[in-house]
């Protein structure tokens, strides 16, 4: 840099000479002047660059991971008690399926840390802090960066690729709560400890194939926390196709299959003598999920307006043995065969009609299908001993409007008519804020 300056000075000094040397023509003078100006500019550019490069403060935390904190709070007004929430016709999942509390409450705060570990791996940790205290590890995984040919391996705890919305964190959902089908089939949201292998095909049409082997630490596997055994407790396979239509529509379709062998998966019910009992299931659970997403924005520019259509269809088959009253609290422990085929789906559309404002509608429907309980068929017990398994088709309709002044905050009003219970409709109103602090969030599809 000093050399450049010296050079500029030298040329500048040279400029003074032509006055004394009449042989120099005007043209040459002009050319020299231009050169000096260019040199000057280059010198000042170089100085600026140097300043910029050196002005970053050398701090100890320069290599800290990207940190973001999600805060959310909610006001709920519900005609039915959320603490007594249940989805009739379906085995309770013991997951966090209940709607938000009545009145004002703080939602789960979420702390996310992510960084490249080295040139082989990337690490992500996402921790949710319950309003009453206690930290839950939502996701904590490493992911390969250095594999080629479209392969990625993920290991640790992560949201399963069963279905579409399951992989998305709750704060990025388009509605306050999960679709009923996710509540009934995945215990609200399924995360498991395991390993995932994914391959993306070398085609311009997006195509992936993947498999997950997991511990089976939560519903539909069981018991809670996973079995005390070597090997795997659950297996998931998935595939997606995706691409663009024209110059404004992107789509993706997925099919996934989750298989697990629950052992002593317990749930609570109240039998015909009005005694609370604990029942348990041991057998096989197989879940298929078909999902589709369509996103439209004029010229793929979602800034002004955009529309998103999303739907998933779940179908589950379970067979094995059902044990009634496992703790012998009522009529005594008995075991019989069990088989069920159940399904559910939802379809939702969200439309941003002007910048910042979106409206959405969601329709949920579940079908408890056919459930065969050996103990009832044999006459040992009656259907009234398994009231929560009684045939029912829960539905829910939801509308929402939200306002997002920027990329980092959102305020949402949501109204719903929830017929998860066969005997009552729950009229729900939620007013919610969700904000994100720190690192910029990912714009995932």
């Amino acid at each position: 840099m000093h050399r450049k300056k010296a050079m500029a000075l030298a040329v500048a000094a040279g400029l003074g000479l032509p006055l004394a040397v009449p042989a120099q023509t005007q043209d040459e003078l002009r050319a020299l002047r231009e050169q000096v100006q260019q040199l000057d500019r280059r010198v000042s550019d170089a100085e600026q660059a140097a300043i910029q490069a050196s002005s970053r403060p050398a701090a100890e935390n320069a290599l800290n991971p990207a940190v973001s904190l999600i805060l959310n709070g909610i006001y709920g007004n519900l005609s039915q008690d959320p603490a007594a929430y249940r989805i009739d016709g379906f085995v309770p999942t013991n997951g966090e399926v209940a709607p938000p509390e009545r009145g004002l409450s703080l939602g789960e705060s979420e702390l996310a840390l992510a960084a490249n570990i080295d040139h082989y791996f990337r690490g992500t940790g996402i921790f949710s802090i319950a309003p009453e205290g206690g930290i839950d590890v939502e996701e904590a995984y490493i992911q390969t960066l250095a594999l080629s040919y479209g392969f990625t391996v993920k290991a640790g705890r992560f949201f399963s690729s069963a279905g579409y919305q399951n992989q998305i964190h709750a704060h990025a959902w388009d509605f306050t709560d999960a679709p009923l089908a996710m509540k009934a089939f995945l215990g609200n949201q399924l995360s498991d400890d395991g390993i995932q292998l994914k391959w993306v095909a070398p085609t311009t049409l997006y195509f992936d194939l993947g498999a997950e082997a997991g511990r089976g630490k939560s519903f539909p596997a069981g018991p809670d926390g996973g079995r005390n055994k070597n090997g795997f407790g659950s297996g998931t396979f998935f595939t997606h196709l995706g691409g663009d239509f024209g110059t404004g529509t992107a789509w993706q379709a997925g099919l996934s299959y989750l298989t697990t062998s629950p052992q002593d998966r317990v749930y609570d019910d109240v039998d015909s003598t009005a005694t609370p009992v604990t029942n348990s299931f041991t057998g096989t659970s197989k879940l298929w999920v078909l999902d589709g997403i369509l996103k439209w924005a004029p010229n793929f520019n979602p800034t002004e307006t955009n529309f998103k259509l999303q739907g998933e269809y779940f179908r589950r088959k379970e067979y094995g043995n059902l044990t009634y009253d496992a703790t012998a609290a009522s009529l005594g422990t008995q075991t019989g065969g069990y088989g069920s085929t159940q399904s559910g789906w939802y379809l939702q559309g969200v439309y941003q009609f002007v910048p910042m404002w979106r409206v959405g509608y969601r329709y949920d429907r579940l079908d408890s299908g056919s459930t065969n309980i050996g103990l009832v068929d044999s006459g040992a017990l009656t259907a009234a001993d398994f009231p929560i398994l009684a045939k029912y088709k829960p539905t829910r309709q939801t509308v929402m409007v939200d306002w997002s002044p920027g990329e980092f905050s959102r305020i949402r009003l949501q109204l719903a008519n929830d017929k998860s219970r066969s005997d009552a409709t729950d009229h729900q109103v939620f007013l919610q804020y969700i904000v994100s602090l720190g690192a910029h969030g990912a714009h995932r599809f």
Partner: protein
Amino acid sequence: MKSILKSLAALSLALAALPAMALSVFTCEPEWGALVQELGGDKVSVYSATTALQDAHRIEARPSLIARIRSADLLVCSGAELEIGWVPLLLTQSGNSRIQLGGPGYFEASQFVVKLDVPKVIDRTLGDVHPAGNPHVHTDPRNIAKVAAALEDRMIQLDPGNAQTYRSRGKSFLARWQAAIARWEKEAAPLKGVPVVVYHKDFSYFINWAGMREVASLEPKPGIPPTPSHLAELIDQMKASPAKVIVYSPYNSPQAADFLSSRTKIPTVMIPFTVGGTDKAKDLFGLFDDTIQRLLGALK
């Protein structure tokens, strides 16, 4: 086992015998796509993730982009956190080690130029600020030359077999480009000192190059859409000290600019912003030709 090895060997031989594949380049913005095309000619195949009609910040990592980045040899983006919402996600989803951060296949154009608007204070109350500085570096033609030189080196590093082509095309491009800059400097002389209202701070490098004065932006804060109250303030500001022109990009809605123009009688002009932004901005030369002509036209 032996037969597997044999067939693998046969397969690799067969692959080696195939004609050399073009260097596959994934660019985040069309201006870099155009630049790679200038430098690489038929030795490269270029895919641009966005068009001039899109805001390169507000892009989702949609399946078609993952499919394209999966097979890329080189990723060319503006950087400086412009694509922070989607490129990191594409990288982790790609299963492609060639284009990961830190490797030769990862190229951020903004690293090779002096950045403007590096914020002294970094806080989200100031809008969606980019701590690394203004990422829209391509609107200064001198920056294109700097990036071209660095990009040429990178392409040679990745594809040494075609080094000769990249070098001669690079030399030819830079010669034509320097001549064009000299011409544009003359053409843009009347723009010197002209006060301008921008939509978003995406035109600052051009303004700096041409010596114009950026006096206001339609966005109250970077990345925050224009609000009625902010537009009302701008009307007052323009009455006190009027700007000569209001510029916006093809990916911006013209509404706010038109509204301010109707109240202040200051002309608006849509600049192409990047390659493909207007019919005349077919390549990088057309981009600057048309940008300057449109601005001059608005001042008449």
